[in-house]
């Protein structure tokens, strides 16, 4: 393309991005993304009360207004992916504007939560955090509080249980373990290594990370968690939930209106980027030079008019077999974006129209693994449609082979599994789990995991308030 397009909004500057069939200059594009986010932040009264600067008026006194401003603390989980960085960037702009317009006042304060897994990730994330605070957030640094949490705190609970899936009946049972039983506390690392595929690993990690972040929000008494999910990411999640038998959870996952039922109803979740496509967020990263802060991801350049040639950074394509379900959903959306560009927004809009399913279980209960509400009895459903009895032995050869099997290693290893199962049957109690977690359990070794009995206690043990060393001082 040799023709120089000009921005359709300001009609002056040269266009650098084409998004939704419209050419934008960099300034207009950033404004476009930013406004989409701000619109969501003002979506209802609850969030307006959080983000707006409050003043004395007919109903509130000056003290109450002050108190509202001070209590408007939001938690921003930062993964250093493109979406959460762009979201923080826009939030920071809002803060800077408020400081200027309201002469030193802000309507809210941000606390950043970085949840890491493993020492290498800890270092990379902390380096980026330091860089970010000393450059882009320098002016507003005093308004932030930063927390760094190790995902291992997930197991910081007084009691642990052993959870076991019986593969013939799909019944999940638990046994209490005592500290002297195994000698050491279970770790995330050990647990993840027991997964037989990447999907189960990703799901478990996700369950643990979400629990840590949400529990942190409960214990820290935040008003809301601001998730960086882009529209594309939400579409992935919706499709992946359906594929994982977790469609019942879509309604709660997308709910920005009610308090989080699964976590004590003390905060609300907000997805301020739900109207912005990932490709747009990625273009934003390129335009506003956020690349150096991004961790383990290279933002796409699909929307940029002039592509950056030096970035031969595209990750090598994975074999389908090695991909996780979320990755497959993402790949699907990537592939059809050209032909059916509205599919992503259709999926998110459809997801938002879903309600929580009707309850068919007698008593209200939660999944013992992921804490989500249970609406149906998964094991019973599976038992109904799967027969696991055998056809009787007929010939003499059948009987002969059967006795060989009984005495073989295979028979014995099955026996071991059955022994384990029967131990759980005798000593264990049934643990209600959702259908999705049933599938995860089926994909770990021995269908057996260690899990905390109750939600993790994050604040009690590890709360590492991160102090940034000032470069200048």
């Amino acid at each position, binding site marked *: 393309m040799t023709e120089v397009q000009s921005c359709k909004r300001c009609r002056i500057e040269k266009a650098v991005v084409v998004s939704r069939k419209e050419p934008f200059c960099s300034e207009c594009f950033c404004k476009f993304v930013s406004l989409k986010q701000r619109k969501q932040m003002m979506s209802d009264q609850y969030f307006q009360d959080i983000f707006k600067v409050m003043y004395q008026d007919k109903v509130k006194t000056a003290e109450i207004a002050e108190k509202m401003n001070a209590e408007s603390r939001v938690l921003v989980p930062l993964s250093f992916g493109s979406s959460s960085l762009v979201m923080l960037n826009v939030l920071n702009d809002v803060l800077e504007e408020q400081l200027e317009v309201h002469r030193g006042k802000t309507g809210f304060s941000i606390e950043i939560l970085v949840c890491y897994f493993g020492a290498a990730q800890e270092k990379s994330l902390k380096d980026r955090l330091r860089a970010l605070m000393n450059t882009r957030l320098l002016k507003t640094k005093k308004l932030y509080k930063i927390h760094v949490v190790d995902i291992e705190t997930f197991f910081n609970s007084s009691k642990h249980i052993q959870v076991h899936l019986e593969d013939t009946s799909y019944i999940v049972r638990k046994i209490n373990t005592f500290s002297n039983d195994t000698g050491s506390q279970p770790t995330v690392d050990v647990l993840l290594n027991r997964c037989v595929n990447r999907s189960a690993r990703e799901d478990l990690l996700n369950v643990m990370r979400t629990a840590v972040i949400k529990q942190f929000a409960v214990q820290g008494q935040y008003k809301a968690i601001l998730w960086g999910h882009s529209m594309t990411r939400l579409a992935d999640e919706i499709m992946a939930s359906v594929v994982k038998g977790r469609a019942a959870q879509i309604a709660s996952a997308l709910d920005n209106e009610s308090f989080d039922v699964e976590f004590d109803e003390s905060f609300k979740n907000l997805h301020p980027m739900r109207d912005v496509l990932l490709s747009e967020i990625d273009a934003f990263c390129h335009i506003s030079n956020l690349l150096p802060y991004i961790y383990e991801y290279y933002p796409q350049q699909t929307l940029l008019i002039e592509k950056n040639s030096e970035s031969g950074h595209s990750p090598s394509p994975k074999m*389908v077999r090695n991909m996780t379900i979320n990755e497959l959903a993402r*790949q699907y959306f990537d592939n059809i974006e050209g032909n059916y560009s509205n599919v992503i927004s259709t999926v998110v809009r459809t997801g938002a129209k*879903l309600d929580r399913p009707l309850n068919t279980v007698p008593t209200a209960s939660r999944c013992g693994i992921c804490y989500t509400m249970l609406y149906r009895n998964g094991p019973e459903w599976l038992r109904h449609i*799967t027969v696991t009895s055998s056809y009787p032995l007929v010939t003499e050869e059948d009987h002969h082979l059967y006795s060989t099997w009984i005495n073989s290693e295979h*028979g014995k290893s099955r026996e071991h599994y059955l022994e384990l199962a029967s131990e759980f049957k005798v000593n264990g109690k049934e643990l209600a789990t959702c259908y999705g977690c049933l599938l995860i359990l089926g994909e770990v070794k021995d269908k057996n995991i260690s899990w905390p009995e109750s939600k993790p206690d994050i604040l009690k043990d590890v709360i590492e308030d991160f102090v940034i060393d000032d470069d200048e001082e």
Partner: protein
Amino acid sequence: MSHTPPLDPKKPKNVKVSQLCELCHARKALIKRPKNLQKVCKLCFFHVFETEIHNTIVSNKLFVEGEKVAVGASGGKDSTVLAYLLKLLNERHNYGIHIVLLSIDEGIVGYRDDSLATVKRNKEQYNLPLEIVSYRELYDWTMDEIVACAGVRNSCTYCGVFRRQALDRGAAKLGIKHVVTGHNADDMAETVLMNILRGDVARLEKSTAIMTQSSGSPIKRSKPFKYAYQKEIVLYAHYKKLDYFSTECTYAPEAFRGTARELMKNLEAVRPSCIIDIIHSGESLRLLPKKAKRAPPTSHVEVRSDGSISLPRQGFVDGNRCERCGYLSSNKICKACMLLEGLQQNRAKMAIDSDVSVHGAAKLTRTLEKLTF
């Protein structure tokens, strides 16, 4: 080299213990069930497959004693296995139903005529009565003519709408109030995904219903294979040596459905159980109650700027009928009549005697297949 005695072809003695069926542990496993990855032998496979279908039928109370049931038979694997299995289970468990084969002749030369031949053989093999209803007699169009007129891209839209009606009309003609179809778990999962990808809210909640019935229609439909994997149906047909027709329809499937199918295939490679997982999801999809729109009172009529007025919209009324043909319809005129009208307008005014050019791609394929040097 030592001499090895010739193997007895009837008795493969060297069955390794690791190769044994995971259910009976006594026979060689031949099949890996996609549902739970169990390796099972042929006999156990027949046992579990048949029992599962039986359980589905019984727990959903699909049949009533003395009922006449039409099997939508296309000659393909699903409907052939369905006809075979219903007959078998009916005799084994005394459902007390009367089974009739009901086929639709869409008029696709080189495809449907061949598959109908299969159905006719099935009729003899299973000793079941057969009724064939054709698009030609119902609508005065064949699919080949429709494609010639409206193009190949929309073929599935026409065919789907017409077939739905044709099955009902065929059943009504025979005095049957229950049509069973061979829709399997794969079809159902694909539909769930499609409805979400297309945002088809109207179909979202009902897409996994095993039985559909409208208060306005005497004919109900059910899908006993709702939980049966396509793979297992094929294996069942294969090991039972059933006679079925295995060519896909030559008119291209809908392009968008193709992308969903591709996605399903990839997902299945990663987690074979995903098909029933998706159905589980589909069963728990429920829509939020519709928000009441802020609308003027019903007695008011809005006059638009161009002078047109908006007629009061009638909501969906179950049992509403088409003004032209009397078939069930949520609108004034049913979809089939609407499509027919469009076709009629474009029908060629003149035709060449004994013209065969409308015969579609299927005919050509068949002809090419028969060519030899």
